């Protein structure tokens, strides 16, 4: 099966500083990422702030300029594809953002917001669009009269439903969701998580979900990629990743997730230090200063992402083998 959306050796840098005479410095946010999303698959990208996961999502959508590598959609390089094909891709790949208060234009009605992708892509007539909006509202569990109201009249969870309806409007194949739960209350998160699962089952969507919430990822995803300082350090099926993480960083992240009912915390065993500055990454493996199992080799040689066993790849000189 060929990938629907794929990053090939994708790099993104942002200029910082610079002025009239000084050239700006380039900060690498995504460094040589290879990642493929299959049709109908739910792939999650996890990592902490500064790992480049949001930038990766935006680069896949063409929202930030790419500084190296390619984004491939349905076998075509997006950099060289004709404008009509790019417009078709934008219809097929939709995005849901983190902040349901920022992602809806406060001046438009909910109906106008949901119909906007249809207008941009020239789908349907005014009447069919209105019918489609009503249908979509029902699909995400909102009443049909919501279409006439404005975003500020809805709660966070309801707004995230509106954002989902907008993403679903042009009948896409892929939804890229950037932290779709993290701005919501705990009791609302599970409602949206269930909705995402249900929609996928009904419509056969592929998801690329960006999240730092490992428990939500475990619930939703088929495969998981872990990112650290702009690079993918591990890719695996969700069960393998959560039961037998191969990269020490993945293992550290999993260990750091607070668990209910495990009793009061016993200090110790946490990942030390902070994520390093992308302007001055450590030599060799960028994770080695925080890694308990680092050797002299880790400080010199950059580990490449290489297959470990079926459907699983890791960028580590000394991958872990046991279960957690």
């Amino acid at each position: 099966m060929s990938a629907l959306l794929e990053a090939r050796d994708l790099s993104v840098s942002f200029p910082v500083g610079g002025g009239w005479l000084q050239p700006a410095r380039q900060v690498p946010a995504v460094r040589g990422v290879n990642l493929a999303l299959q049709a109908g698959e739910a792939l999650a990208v996890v990592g902490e702030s500064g790992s480049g996961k949001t930038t990766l999502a935006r680069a896949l959508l063409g929202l930030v300029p790419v500084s190296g590598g390619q984004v491939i959609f349905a076998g075509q390089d997006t950099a060289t594809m004709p404008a009509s094909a790019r417009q078709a891709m934008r219809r097929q790949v939709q995005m849901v953002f983190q902040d349901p208060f920022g992602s809806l234009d406060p001046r438009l009605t909910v109906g106008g917001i949901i119909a906007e992708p249809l207008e941009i892509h020239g789908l349907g007539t005014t009447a069919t669009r209105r019918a489609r909006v009503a249908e979509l509202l029902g699909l995400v569990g909102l009443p049909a009269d919501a279409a006439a109201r404005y975003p500020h009249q809805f709660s966070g969870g309801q707004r995230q439903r509106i954002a989902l309806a907008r993403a679903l409007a042009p009948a896409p194949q892929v939804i890229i969701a950037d932290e779709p739960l993290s701005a919501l209350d705990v009791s609302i998160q599970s409602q949206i998580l269930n909705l995402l699962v249900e929609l996928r089952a009904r419509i056969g969507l592929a998801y690329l979900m960006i999240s730092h919430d490992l428990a939500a990822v475990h619930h939703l995803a088929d495969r998981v990629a872990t990112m650290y300082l702009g690079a993918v350090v591990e890719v695996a099926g969700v069960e393998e990743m959560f039961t037998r993480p191969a990269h020490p960083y993945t293992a550290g992240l999993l260990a750091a997730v607070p668990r209910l009912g495990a009793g009061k915390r016993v200090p110790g065993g946490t990942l030390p230090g902070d994520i390093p500055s992308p302007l001055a990454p450590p030599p060799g493996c960028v994770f080695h200063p925080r890694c308990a199992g680092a050797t002299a080799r880790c400080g010199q040689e950059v580990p490449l992402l290489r297959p470990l066993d079926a459907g699983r790849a890791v960028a580590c000189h000394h991958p872990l083998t046991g279960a957690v």
Partner: protein
Amino acid sequence: MTAPLLHAADLKVTLGPPGAGVAVIAGLDFSLEAGRTLGVVGESGCGKSMTALAIMGLLPRPHAVGGALRFNGTDVLTLPAEGHRRLRGAQMAMIFQEPMTALNPVVTVGRQIAEMLEVHRATPPDQAARQAVALLERVGIADAGRRATAFPHQLSGGMRQRVMIAMAIACKPALLIADEPTTALDVSVQAQILDLLLELQRDEGMAMVFISHNLGVVSEMADDILVMYSGRAVEYGPAQAVLRAPRHPYTAGLIATLPDIGRRQAVLPVIPGNVVNPRRRPAGCAFAGRCAQAGADCAAAVPMLTPVAAGHAAACLRVRPAA
């Protein structure tokens, strides 16, 4: 048994001008012994942060308070402003969610810590500066001497929260209030900060009010748990009892709704509906509108916190009180 360090009896807080106020806390009881940790859990608007601000005397104006809130036997609600100010920082300290904005951007972190000692202990500035460096070391900041001269924007998020903690423990307070202290941090840094707080509590013996929307984090930190919903306690008891055998439908729903890393379910149980806006709180049980077990009686009267087991209480008409 000695009197508890902190004791709230029917605490009420109304924000806004008289007549147009919103009751953000509508009657709250809890107590906290020295050296122990009370975890306060709830969703946005449940009143957990206002509880913290009421203890500290930092409620936004205008406001009205009712009931009693005793700290070391003194009712801080009736304490004159100057008396409350002397307690703040010296005997009760607080750390906040956003360590970036909670620190003054134009003052070095060393000065911000030293200021605590100068104000409450009248320590001379040079000596306070030296103690600030020692405090930075105490909270695990490497190269503390140099970091003390740094401004907040030159530090990482985790380090800023360590600075906040150093500031809070500078005068060895009896009570530390931590309001969502790790919400803005990444999981790996969150684990570091939680460890630091536990170590400091073990060494200094201070009591802690640990506020979070994250049940998992609270379960790892708390001895007792207070679950709040719309300005009231719905369940209160020892952490393990509340988490293993929740009695209030809201607590039970909250626990069930969390996806569990160890166990994948096809569909997560959900609490339907939305969090109640305190301006439109219904009469009776505020949770009734979202509760599967609710009946007509639930809308009639506010259920009282009723003991269900030793030290464990729930505010629900459907729970059977302890014999």
